[in-house]
């Protein structure tokens, strides 16, 4: 039965050490499935890349009655993320990676200072198994992508390659309603139009910024976009709209749609 196991694996299970690996040890935060799929896609992980930035956000007081962007905070969020991402990318460049897969961007607040935020960018640097250079970003550096190993494989099979992780951020203050305005709607169902339009504007600004980044990276489109609202310990009525996604380009030339393999439909009965 064991003859269907690969010889090298059998050696190891017998307790025999394989010869010393010349390539050294790679580190990654892949799951087993991601690891297999990234290799199936023709890439090899080489090392974890981390970028850190502890940032002190300036203070800005919003105009109580006005919906407006909090430019100081917007800039802070942008700048700090940029620093963390750049450092992660620099680590990847230093280890000679062609790209970074599965980037996780996290923001942590610290207990002792409400103006301090910690930004961490963490991903796994990969190289193309056959040394293909065509997967690098437009500036010749490593590509970045927040797609998981599974999505990475699927994207390549859809005929696209990741170029750069792009994001847009807008910290926005939604105006408070005046006393008279609140009184006039007591007991009525009305849309709070100024709130609605404030949300629209803020979201629009964030998306626009992300799109500009994608254009600057000479990408064709952005996949896996996630848009969320967050408040990182600011006053109420202050919201950060954040859009993030992976800018993509066709591999060499776009695959004709009919050549892309159709996924089979299944209905699992495991449960």
């Amino acid at each position, binding site marked *: 039965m064991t003859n269907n196991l690969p010889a090298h694996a059998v050696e190891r299970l017998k*307790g025999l050490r394989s010869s010393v690996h010349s390539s050294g040890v790679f580190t990654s935060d892949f799951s087993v*499935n991601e690891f297999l799929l990234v290799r199936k896609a023709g890439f090899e992980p080489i090392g974890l890349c981390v970028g850190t930035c502890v*940032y002190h956000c300036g203070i800005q007081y919003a105009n109580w009655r006005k919906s407006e962007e909090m430019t100081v905070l917007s800039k802070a969020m942008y700048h700090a993320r940029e620093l963390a991402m750049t450092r992660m990318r620099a680590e990847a460049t230093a280890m000679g990676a062609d790209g970074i897969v599965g980037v996780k961007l996290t923001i942590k607040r610290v*207990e002792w200072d409400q103006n301090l935020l910690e930004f961490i960018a963490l991903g796994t640097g990969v190289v193309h198994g056959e040394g293909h250079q065509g997967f690098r970003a437009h500036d010749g550096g490593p590509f970045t992508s927040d797609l998981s190993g599974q999505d990475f494989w699927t994207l390549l099979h859809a005929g696209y390659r990741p170029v750069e992780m792009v994001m847009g951020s807008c910290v926005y203050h939604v105006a408070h309603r005046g006393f008279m305005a609140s009184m006039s709607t007591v007991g009525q169902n009305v849309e709070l139009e100024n709130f609605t339009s404030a949300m629209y504007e803020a979201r629009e600004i964030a998306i626009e910024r992300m799109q500009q980044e994608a254009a600057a990276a000479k990408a064709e489109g952005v996949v896996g976009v996630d848009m969320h609202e967050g408040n990182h310990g600011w006053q109420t009525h202050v919201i950060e709209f954040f859009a993030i996604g992976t800018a993509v380009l066709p591999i060499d030339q776009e695959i004709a749609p009919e050549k892309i393999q159709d996924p089979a439909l*299944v209905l699992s009965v495991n449960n």
Partner: protein
Amino acid sequence: MGLLDWLRNAAVGPPPALSPQEQEAALRRQADIMVSLRAGQVPSVVRERLEASRQGRLPWIATLTPAELLLARSHGIRPIGAVSATCWMHYGWSWTLGHSQGWEAALQRLRAEAVAAGANAVLDVKMRSIALGVENSMDFSLVGTAVRIDGLPPSPEPVIATVPALEFVKLIDADVVPTGIAIGAHYDWLNDWRGSTDLRWMGNIESGALTRHWEAVRRQAHARLRQSAQGQGNGVLAHVNFSQMFEFGERENQPRRYLARHIVVATVVDARRGVPVPHDIQMVVDLRDGISPLLNTTKHHQAYQQNDEDGPI
């Protein structure tokens, strides 16, 4: 003893006391466990149980699900018995390094049990700990299933796979062997003599001192991870990336201090570069609503979800 127990005891009388022989046997067993562990050996009770399982005198025990058993059998993998190891560590001078010491000690003991069981590998190894918070200490426990591969002699150094049987087989098929656990842990203090972390009156600015401190700690933890993996394989799949930073205010003759710590826990793999993954991948779309059972995998590391209370360092 709770009130209920007391009432019950009052009604039926206390539980029958152990006979002197039984008491003595229990004491002897405890002493044997302690002496064996101190000598780096498998306790004789465990050794006897594993040997009996290995020879088929006792039924085998496996933590595998029926589906995993099916796949294991189709690849010539036979379960022998459940193996486990514990190291209850008290953090004397370092919480952070205590973690890597604790896991490494447990790993060694698990390996010894696997050797005693005549195994080629231990699958489905789960890292466990109970959040008891007893005197700055924590238990580091590993539980898994020792298996042998049909037609292979017992290994002097069984591989420890912290992945379920399903993933073990998937990896072996792709010529990747999960071999053990690697820990990268590091902590460091930052003494802020010059007040460079005080940014109270500043606008948007990076806290360079803290960033550099963090970076140094993380890099060191990752470097240790590589080191710890080196003896076992040529790569790691990290499951846990755990970091914390604390501030300690100024005190007499002492500046403001910061403590940063970072722990990475990973499965070590031995993979040859450039070996193609043999299986074709078929894309499917599950027609189920909600969470697809095809995606259902169990969490294998829960030690850090429960256990992030503070300790000294």
